[in-house]
């Protein structure tokens, strides 16, 4: 049952092979038994999950079921859930119980899915290793003799899906936070086009870059999740009014004649030769299906990380100014005056990385520096976007590495935050340009999974899901599971 797809689970539920109560209980039992190893969940909502499962079974009995009725899933703890604690991995929101649902969580509720609980993450989605959570680091289920990171910031969701503690999970991606953990945990994760999925109720980090997306074991499951998540939302003025295609229907299209670009700047001497080989093998698989490869150039992508570390901290400093210790969130003991209340509540509530980014952002936006930093970074951002627009004049999809390495050991990046920032070198430009990207398992190095990334043109999620699905039809990397997770 643990390796069944969403479609198979749905068929099992509707044919009466098993009930949603049984399925949900199975996952809850697994979380209880196994998650002490991984720490992938912050909150498990047993009572409510069982109540949702019972309600789903009742609908199935009445013949009112749809695809998602009774299917369990987990939400990254960045999505607000009405009545269920939402921490964003921070002490600031340790006891925060939202009075409303994010559009993404409401959509899954509406579709009949069962929420198992909330997954661990880097605090306020800032990090690439999930070592920054107030609720403790997450351990990658693929860890060998070394305890390894699941990647971040959606590390809890990635670990939970890889360890079969949930069939699928939601994530968010600001600079690689869905795709990098997907690569490290051997799963499939998609960051949609900016504006494709509503950000309403998704706790904001960098508003012009943040985007929610699916994390699953296959492109097919990811497509079915995206169908629920995508669409214009009047509550998010940055979401785009554009029709949502039938993602599942597009999966089976032939990729014969499809033009795939390989960016010269990513396939260079700095790329680990083992990853290079894995990607060459993947290219052969797609070539055998009729895809046509050519080189493309993205001359400004090396500016992605510098531009990101102005834009994201600047937007984070503005977004996180709402945490004032007055309306919700952590409040310090016995404040002397209002200034003391603000300063102590915030420095007690936020962890080190969050405070660093708030300081960088505050500086970049302060009087006299705005044009030199934020304005300049936004100009560079357009140069990066233009590179992609030019490349997509000649190709339909771009293939690249997702990460510069497989999962690394916990604590191995040392004390300099910049070392961690360089992790996102292949993913960050997709966010800056606002394009959709998917990471899917492409091979293994020393028994550890590694992903490849497919970037699509604006709103072309169906196309990259299609290519990913065709690759998964021809390979079995995505069906590999870490050791010791089966019952």
């Amino acid at each position, binding site marked *: 049952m643990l390796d069944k797809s969403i479609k198979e689970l749905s068929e099992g539920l509707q044919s009466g092979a098993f009930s949603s109560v049984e399925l949900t209980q199975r996952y809850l039992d697994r979380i209880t038994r196994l998650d002490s190893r991984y720490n992938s969940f912050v909150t498990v909502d047993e009572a409510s999950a069982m109540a949702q499962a019972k309600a789903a079974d009742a609908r199935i009995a009445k013949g009112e079921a749809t695809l998602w009725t009774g299917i369990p899933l987990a939400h990254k703890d960045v999505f607000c859930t009405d009545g269920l604690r939402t921490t964003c991995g921070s002490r600031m929101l340790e006891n925060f119980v939202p009075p409303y649902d994010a559009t993404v969580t409401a959509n899954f509720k509406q579709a009949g899915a069962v929420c198992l609980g909330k997954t661990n993450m880097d605090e306020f989605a800032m990090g690439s290793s999930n070592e920054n959570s107030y609720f403790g680091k997450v351990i990658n289920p693929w860890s060998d003799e070394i305890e390894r990171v699941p990647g971040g910031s959606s590390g809890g969701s990635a670990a939970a899906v890889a360890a079969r503690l949930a069939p699928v999970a939601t994530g968010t991606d600001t600079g690689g936070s869905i795709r990098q953990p997907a690569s490290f945990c051997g799963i499939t994760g998609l960051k949609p086009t900016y504006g494709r999925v509503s950000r309403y109720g998704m706790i904001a980090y960098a508003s012009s870059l943040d985007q929610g997306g699916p994390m699953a074991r296959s492109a097919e499951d990811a497509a079915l999740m995206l169908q629920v998540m995508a669409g214009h939302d009047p509550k998010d003025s940055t979401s785009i009014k554009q029709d949502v295609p039938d993602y599942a229907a597009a999966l089976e299209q032939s990729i014969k004649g499809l033009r795939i670009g390989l960016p010269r700047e990513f396939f260079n001497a700095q790329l680990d030769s083992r990853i290079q080989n894995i990607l060459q093998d993947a290219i052969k698989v797609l070539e055998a299906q009729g895809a046509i490869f050519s080189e493309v150039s993205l001359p400004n992508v090396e500016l992605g990380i*510098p531009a990101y570390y102005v834009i994201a901290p600047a937007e984070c400093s503005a977004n996180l100014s709402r945490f004032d210790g007055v309306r919700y969130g952590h*409040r310090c003991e016995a*404040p002397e005056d209002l200034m003391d209340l603000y300063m102590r509540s915030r420095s007690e509530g936020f962890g080190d990385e969050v405070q660093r980014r708030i*300081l*960088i952002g*505050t500086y970049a936006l302060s009087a006299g520096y705005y044009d030199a930093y934020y304005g300049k*970074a*936004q100009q560079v951002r357009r140069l990066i*976007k233009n590179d992609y627009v030019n490349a997509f004049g000649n190709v339909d999809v771009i293939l690249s590495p997702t990460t510069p390495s497989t999962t690394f050991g916990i604590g191995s990046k040392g004390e300099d935050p910049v070392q961690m920032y360089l992790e996102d070198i292949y993913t960050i430009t997709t966010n800056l340009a606002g394009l959709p990207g998917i990471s899917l398992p492409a091979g293994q190095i020393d028994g550890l999974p590694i992903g490849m990334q497919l970037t699509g043109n604006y709103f072309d999620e169906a196309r990259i899901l299609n290519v990913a699905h065709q690759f998964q039809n021809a390979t079995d990397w995505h069906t590999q599971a870490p050791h010791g997770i089966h019952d």
Partner: protein
Amino acid sequence: MSFSSDDIKNVATLARLHVDEEKVEKLGQDINNILALVDQLKAVDTTGIEPMAHPMDAVQILRADEVTETDQREKFQACAPATEEGLYLVPKVIE
């Protein structure tokens, strides 16, 4: 530019963050490393390039000015650290 301890304290005050004295030096070093990374942008010629605020260059959508939300004050204040009679409590501001 290089960040001094005084700069850290000034920016921290602007950001309403309290930085412990023993953390100032390490924080300054971290921020200088990050600014060194970011300073690569300075060498780029961006003359005449319009800053990009939205990938699709979308503009703010306006809606009809109609009442669509209902009063849920009690629900919304249930997560506040301190309230009284529908008001948020803070330390005394005016003597």
